[in-house]
Structures are given as C-alpha cells and as structure tokens.
C-alpha cells in the first residue's frame, strides 16, 4: 500500500469517527473547566436533558439520510403531548391507551408528511414547514392555548423518573429506540433502500426500488419518535402543553449533523446521532454549570455546529482530492 493510499485511509478513518472526536473535544474542554460535570447528580441531569433530543434525532436520522429534512417534529411533539392530556382528562381514557393514542398521532403526522412529499411531490421543506404550523395550530386550538396539569396521573412520571434496577427509565427508552432504528438502518432491506434513495434517487428508481414507499417510511419514523418525545416530555413535567418543543426540530437536526450524517443524504448513522445529541447537551449543560448566560449558550452551540461541519467538509474535500490525483 502506497503512502498516499495510507493517507487516504487515515482520512477516511477520521471521517468515520468525526462524531466521536468532536464529542471528546467538547467533553475534555468542559471537564477541565468544571469537573462537576461528571458528578452522579449532574450526569442524571444530562441524561434527562439529552433524552428528548436523542429521541427526536433517532427519527430525524433516516429522514436526513434520504437527503431530506423534517421541520415539523417540535410541533408534532406538542400535538402528541396535547392529545395525551385531552385523552386522559377530557375523555378519561386509561393511561396506556392514551399513551398509545398520543404516539399514534405522531406516527400519523409523519405518514402525512411522507405522503405529501413522496406522492404529491411537494418539496419537503415546504411540506414540513406547513405541518409544523398546522400541528402547532391544532394543538393550540384543542387545548384552548393553555397547558393541562397531569398531576392526577402520577404513574405517568414513571416513564421519565422511574428506575429498573440500577438503570434509569430514560436510558432504557433511549437504548430501546436506538437499537431498533440502528437495526432498521444497518441490517434490513428497508435501511439499505433508505440509504440508496438518499445516495442517488434516480439510480434507486432504476434498480427497482419503490422510492416513494421508503421516503414515507423515513418520515413516519420521524413522526413516531416525535410522538414518543411528546409523551416523554409530558411525563417529565406532568403536564400536557401545546407550547412545548418550539425549535426542537433544529436541535434534532443539529444532533444528526454533529453525528456525522451528511445533509446531502446517503450516509450517516443513528449511532452518530446519539453522540451528537450528547455533545449538544454537554455544551448546554456545561455552559449552565459555568454560569454562562443562556443567551450566550446559543452562540456557543452555533459556533460548535458550524465549525464541526466546516472541518467535515474540509476533510471530505481532502479525501476527494486524493482520488483525483490518483
């Protein structure tokens, strides 16, 4: 193997682990600034903070792998939370039924997104911008614009604050969701097709893939995780609210991108997204511990995202150049 080829492999290697590398850089930085960050109590806080972004990111990943984006997840999360509240309080449904219904609402929202995009060929940006407004609006109308307390359903909080043995519930939730999505993406024909659609839409059609179907599946997954995230958030604060989750879609996209998934589609993994969500949370939590103003925290998050992606683009170009010369 020539030196040049070896150089190329190293770059590929760095590329594959870019999410992990950026995580360790951020983590090392904050741990030297404030060792408190690894105290058991704080770790639990980090876990609670990361859960929502991680869940949303898990569903956002397949969508971004198809080369598309879902802007509606924050609103769908609020809609799912609202439906949960209404089902429990107004309709008096049993808790498990209400939870299933709330999650189902998310799934349906995703199905609608996917169908509009794949079948009616409405640009994904416009479609999900539309459903972002529509879902939020429906939630606000149904709830009359105010939150409902769910204090009367203490068992609901088990979902976020409970423990199974020594493992906290949110961790179980994250592990379960990530195992499933990772399995779909890496070990099933569905996953292969999702990557194929994102990598080259025309070629995917010409090898006989029903491209529409797999775009719909990706959006449905995203809607489903938004529904789960809505239930999780309601359980955390023991309230149903139509105004939660504002701008969360951007956090989910940021987690995916920090996780090394290309916005151009065709590559990336849900494992990376988990690390990306964690990086994002550590920045936010670390800034908080350091007493940095929450306003400034946004600036830090923005800087980290742009610089990580800039490095990634730079490395991709380097890798490409090796080939042009060869």
């Amino acid at each position: 193997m020539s030196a040049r080829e070896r150089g190329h492999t190293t770059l590929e290697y760095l590329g594959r682990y870019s999410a992990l590398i950026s995580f360790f850089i951020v983590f090392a930085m904050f741990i030297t600034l404030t060792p408190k960050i690894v105290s058991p109590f704080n770790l639990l806080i980090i876990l609670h903070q990361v859960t929502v972004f991680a869940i949303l990111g898990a569903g956002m990943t397949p969508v971004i792998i198809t080369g598309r984006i879902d802007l509606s997840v924050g609103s769908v999360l609020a809609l799912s939370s609202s439906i949960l509240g209404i089902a429990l309080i107004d309709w008096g449904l049993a808790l498990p039924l209400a939870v299933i219904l709330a999650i189902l609402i998310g799934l349906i929202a995703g199905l609608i997104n996917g169908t509009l995009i794949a079948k009616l060929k409405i640009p994904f940006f416009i479609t999900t911008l539309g459903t972002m407004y529509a879902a939020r609006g429906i939630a606000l109308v149904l709830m009359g614009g105010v939150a409902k307390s769910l204090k009367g359903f203490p068992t609901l909080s088990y979902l976020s604050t409970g423990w199974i043995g020594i493992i906290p519930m949110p961790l179980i939730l994250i592990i379960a969701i990530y195992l499933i999505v990772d399995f779909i993406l890496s070990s099933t024909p569905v996953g292969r097709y999702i990557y194929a659609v994102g990598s080259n839409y025309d070629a995917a059609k010409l090898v006989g893939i029903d491209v529409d179907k797999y775009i719909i599946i990706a959006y449905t997954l995203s809607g489903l995780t938004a529904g789960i995230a809505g239930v999780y958030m309601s359980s955390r604060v023991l309230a149903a609210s139509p105004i939660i989750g504002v701008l969360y879609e951007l956090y989910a996209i940021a987690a995916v991108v920090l996780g090394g998934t290309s916005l151009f589609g065709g590559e990336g993994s849900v494992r990376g997204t988990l690390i990306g969500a964690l990086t994002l949370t550590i920045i936010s939590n670390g800034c908080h511990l350091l007493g940095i103003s929450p306003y400034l925290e946004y600036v830090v998050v923005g800087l980290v995202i742009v610089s990580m992606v800039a490095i990634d683009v730079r490395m991709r170009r380097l890798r490409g150049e090796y080939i042009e010369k060869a």
Partner: protein
Amino acid sequence: MEYILEMKNITKIFPGGFKALDNVDFNLRKGEVHVLLGENGAGKSTLIKVLLGVHKRDSGKVILWGEEVDIKNPREAFTRGISVIYQELSLFPHLTVAENISIIRYPLRKSIVIRRDEMLRRAREALKSLEIDVDPLELVKNLNLSERQLVEIARAFSYGAKIIIMDEPTTALSVPERRRLFNVIKTLKARGISIVYITHFLEEVFEIGDRVTVLRDGRKVGTYMVSEVDEDTILRLMTGRKSLFAGVSEEGRAGVKEEVLRVVITSGSRKYEIPVYTGEVLGIAGPVGAGKTELVKAIYGALRRRDVEVIHKGQRVSFKTPQKAVKFGIGYLPEDRDVEGLFMNRSVLENISIASIWELTKRLLLINKRVERRRVMEVFNALSIRARSLEQKVRYLSGGNKQKVVVARWLCKRPKIIIFDEPTRGIDIPTKIQMYGIIRRLAAQGCAVILSSSEFNEIASLCDRAIVLRQGEVVAEVKGPELSEHKLMSLAIGGVTRER
C-alpha cells in the same frame, strides 16, 4: 499561405498510457468546411481539445496564421479567432438574444452603462448577415434548440471568429432545422470563415463538406477531397477494427432459444415486432442521439411511451415502473452509470447487493450478511474488480471498475433479461474486452441480452440480431450474414436516404 491552421504530428497520451492521438496531422483552408469523421473514441474530440488548450499535447505543433502558437485555454483560442459551438449549448436562457450575442463584450457608455441601442444594432447585423430569422429581443429560453444553436453561431460570427468548430451539431435537429443550419454554414463559408465539422453522419460529408479527414483509433487514416471519394470508400476507411472481439464471437451462439418478451414498436405507419430470445444477444444500433436509450428505458418502464409495447406470452405487460420490470426479471445497466447507476457514497458491497437484497433477507427483515458477503464476493472475484475492500466507497473506483460494479449487481441478481445501454462508453480497453466476454457468456448461459450501442463493430461482433435506429425511428431489422459493421453503419448514418 495555403492553410490558416495547421496541426502537425500531434500526439496525446493520457495518464495510464492510453494513446488518444498518435502523430495526427490536420489542416484548414480559408473558407472551407473540413469534416472530421470517425467512430466514438477515434480521437475527434481529443484533437479539438488539444487545439483549444483543454488538453496539453505531448508532442507536435500548432501553426495559426503561419505562426507557431501555444494556446493555453479556450479563452485564448477565442481571442485568436477560434470559436466552438458546443453540443450542450452555452447561452443564458433568461437573457435576450441580443444580450447573449453581446455578453462577452457589452458595448458600454462611460465604461459602465450598457448601450442597448448599440447592442441591438450589433445583434441585428450579425443575424442579418447570416440570414438567421430570430428576433433579437426574444428571451433565449423561448427559443428551441435549433434557434439557440444559430444564435451561438451568430455570436461567434459577431466577435469576428475566423474558425468555427461544430461538434456533432445535427444530432438533435429535425430535417428542416438541419437544412437551415446548412444554409447558415454556406453563408459563413461565403464570408471566408473556415469550419471544422465533426460528425457521425456519413451523408453530411457529401452534403456540406469540402474536404474530409478520417480518424481511427487515434490515428489519421487520411485527408481527402470530398469530390474524389465515395461513401463506400469512406465507410471502409472508418471501420476495419476487429481485434477487440477475437475469441468473443466463437463463444457459444447456440443454446436453447425461447421467446421471453416481444417488443412492439410503432414507427410511423410501420409496426416492428421484435422478439427477445433467451440465449441470444439482441442489438439496438444507431448513432448517438438516435433514441436508443429512450427505447430501452421504455422497455424497462423507466420512460412512458405509447409507441413501445412489451408483450409476454401473447399478453401485454408493458411495465409502468422499473420496479415492475425488475420483478418480471429484467436488469438494466444505464448509459450514464455515475448519474443513474451508482450509489457513490455507499460501499462496493451495498452497491452490488442492492438489487438482490430481499433474496438475501431472512425472516424479521434481517439481512443475512454472511450469505450476502459470499454472494457479492463471488461476482466481485469473477469480474476481478479492483477495490481496496468490499467496504470501499464506489466513488473512489476507476471508470472501468465502476462499470464492473454495476454489472456485478445484475450478475448477483441473475435476471432472465439484461439490458446493456452503451456498456463500454468511457472505459479502458481491457475492461471493454472483458465486457464483451461477459455479454456473450450471459447469452450462452441462457440469459436474454439486449445490447444498445453506437459502436457498430460491437453490435456486429456480439449480436445475433439487431435493429437499427435513426433519429428516433426504427429503420431496419438485420440478422445473420447481413449483420456487418459496414451494413449497420450505412443503414444508420448514410445509405438509407441515398437509396430512397
């Protein structure tokens, strides 16, 4: 000075040692149409690119107006009076004709404001001298392809080009549009402008050429006065390469023949029924732009066409989507593998197994990765694909290896029918020879192969039967001893109209 342009002993060797041009001479007289004729890969475009400075020549010299020059890029060529009319047009659709004609040097007032009156005058003048009937105030996007081409010529003329190079200018033109172009060419000639005319179409040599230079395999066969040669001579000069197919044609032509499909093409008032047999290679021949890709895509369900029907055992099956065609048992290797065939940022493994992934899947949607690897490895080795590993991204492979990956994909799937669309375009000679072997072997093993190609020697050497296309229409069906390169070429590019 007899020649305004002379290219002497031009040699161009591409990285990897491929000799694209070998000691080629070319010259041009004032006010003549000099046709550059040759098959794909004969070196026509390379010669022009050397002239324009796109490719750096390895040896030889270029003499322009009696003076040795070293043109570094197309821009310099342009300032020296050489303009090219490209196949893919280079106009700005949202500007007017007049603006497009003046775009390189707008007439300015106080060196900042565009003088619209002067711009319009210039455009009118150029269009009028060439007798081109196009409104200078029309937006270019409202013009058809032929009119745009004429506007490009007017632009070159308006900037005082002395040499205009046209690269296959008629491929997309209708008959009256072609006549219009030829009239403009004659006007240019009368005004002392020299034209280098690159073409596939033999008859055009006789329609507008003064002299013709034939290239073959990067070598110059000769330069002739058009008045002194006939079609048969030229055809013989262009062809004559058989060595690539040594051993291929002997490989099993027999085998069990069974009709798997019948393609019905309505071409004008005529109906062509073309059966597709297992164990046979069916050729679809025709020059670039004759509609071969459109035809095979229509068969495959990737393009909807009313005039193409697909029949199986007496029943109309005409696939609506490629998905249905694949399910029926058809595989398709697209003409442009980078754009339509490959998943560039996915691995070699995934690119190969993608078409057969469901067959490699166990219950619960789980891909059996062990079996997948084994199956992919088999075809990977059989085609001797050069890649670092099965995990390497396809993006990093060479052209020939990329093509092999697409072939491997279908060999892994093993469909009943495989359609190859220009399978050897832009790949190296050894891979080409390998591709020919694969095509014949597939047929020998009982697969039905459809081969669409603009290289007539491929069709002649590999196919059992062939249909010939010309400007989107079927012009003939050829089989048996009639299936020769010479015959195909005369059917596709010259003979037919002359006989009529």
